[in-house]
């Protein structure tokens, strides 16, 4: 508990998490607002409200989580941390827990905020969240952010510099996994096992309109919750590798 308090103080005594959260909120909810405003009233579906949260704002949250670690290396406060808490694993796990929790809460705010603004701008559309699938589609964004933050922190610990970590995370999440689908025949099969593809699979609403679904056309082998578990397992595996490396490396 002490270490969680320490990481909380560290995170909230600098400005970057506030800026990143605000930016994620504006981008995520803002994109939904634009989509809602340019769709005919009554035609907007729930599946269209989460593009901003699950695609655009996610990237900002990944950057925020990576920054929480890389700035520590950038300013060598990681050394001050390891002097105060020589057990590096617990110090870094505490940081991961705090950042992942904040990311998850932020995810819920952005997801439900997006639905809210869509309701305001397109009052005639049916945007009620009633079925289990609909709840998963909206509330699941928070889970996605929390797990995504763990991946971002693991990459941050391994790479130790902001530019590198951010480049890896953005290219991986926004470009690489999508581009692999271009490879004839096997591309789609590989995509079925890529972490962020599975994260998107978890959020899929299963409507009639495939254009609304990220990761559409990929033949996933796992159930939707199975995909989330797979995404989480990859995040934990990456974190374990990062923790082992951090423990052995000279600070």
């Amino acid at each position, binding site marked *: 508990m*002490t*270490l969680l*308090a*320490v990481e909380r*103080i*560290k995170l909230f*005594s*600098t*400005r*970057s998490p506030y800026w990143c959260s605000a930016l994620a909120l504006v981008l995520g909810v803002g994109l939904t607002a634009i989509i809602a405003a340019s769709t005919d009233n009554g035609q907007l579906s729930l599946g269209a409200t989460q593009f901003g949260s699950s695609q655009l704002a996610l990237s900002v949250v990944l950057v925020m989580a990576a920054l929480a670690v890389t*700035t520590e290396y950038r*300013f*060598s*406060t990681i*050394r*001050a*941390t*390891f*002097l*105060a*808490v*020589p*057990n590096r694993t617990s110090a870094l796990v505490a940081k991961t827990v705090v950042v992942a929790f904040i990311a998850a809460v932020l995810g819920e705010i952005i997801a439900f905020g997006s639905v809210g603004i869509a309701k305001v701008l397109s009052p005639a559309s049916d945007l009620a969240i009633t079925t289990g699938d609909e709840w998963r589609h909206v509330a699941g964004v928070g889970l996605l952010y929390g797990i995504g933050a763990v991946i971002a922190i693991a990459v941050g610990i391994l790479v130790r510099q902001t530019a590198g970590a951010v480049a890896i995370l953005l290219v991986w999440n926004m470009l690489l996994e999508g581009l692999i689908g271009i490879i004839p025949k096997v591309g789609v099969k590989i995509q079925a096992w890529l972490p962020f593809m599975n994260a998107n699979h978890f959020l899929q609403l299963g409507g009639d309109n495939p254009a609304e679904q990220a990761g559409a056309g990929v033949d996933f082998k796992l159930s939707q919750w199975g995909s989330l578990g797979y995404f989480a397992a990859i995040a934990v595996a990456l974190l374990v590798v990062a923790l082992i490396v951090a423990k*052995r490396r*000279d*600070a």
Partner: protein
Amino acid sequence: MIEAIGLTKRYGRTVAVDDLSFTVQPGRVTGFLGPNGAGKSTTMRMILGLDRPTAGRVLIDGKPYTELNRPLQTVGALLDAKWVHPNRSARAHLKWLAVSNGLPKSRVDAVLEAVGLTQVASKNAGGFSLGMSQRLGIAAALLGDPKVLLFDEPVNGLDPEGILWIRTFMQNLAAEGRTVLVSSHLLSEMALTASELVVIGRGKLITQSSTQEFIDRSTGNTVLVRSPQLFKLGPLLVDKGFTVRDGADGALSVSGATSDQIGDIAAANGVVLHELSPQRGSLEEAFMQLTGDAVEYHAEIGK
């Protein structure tokens, strides 16, 4: 007490610290002296568990740093004053450190007061001058009221007032019975601050002794003698086994003898003395002589 036993650190084929053993006793300031690149900082990082020794170990009051429970209450360290987030206030920086080691919030205010930063505590550390950063670093080191303190080149780049403040501060800490290890590449600074010296060059221990002993041994004693009867005194001194050289203005420069001995010999032989003055070699020269080989070797390795 700090105890290094066969401490070794290799980076690939480069040996940064080579089988280094020394002890640092409480109650006095111990200077950790060596030219730039001698391995002082690497050694200090190994003492603090930041770097993993290739071989050997270092104990603080009998335990490795990483096994200390709430280490800030046992060891305080200032390795680099820039180890703070520039957008975090001085107070927030100390606060998270305090919380991490179960220290009361009152300690934060107490150490801010002790280093004179109370006025600027809520300002971001990134805007601090070097002197202020150094004070913040010292405040962090003192936070847990530790028995053991380590400072790496604490006076580097400070103005004379800052240097004097830190020097006095460290001596007071030692006077309170704490173990204080302070590194420097300047013997002249260490001569004023430390009463004990651990001297290293190229990662190897050159000597551990008291500062006075080190200076006496390394500068060598020469005495300048001026007399109208040098023709008589010179051979007498040579007979006693002292080295006699012609000094400036027809004086004699005698090494290996104290001024007392020369005065006695002169009196016993009825020689009139006009001047009898002990000469101190410069500390820098002595230090260069001792560590010179180490530095040259270092340069050759670099080729």
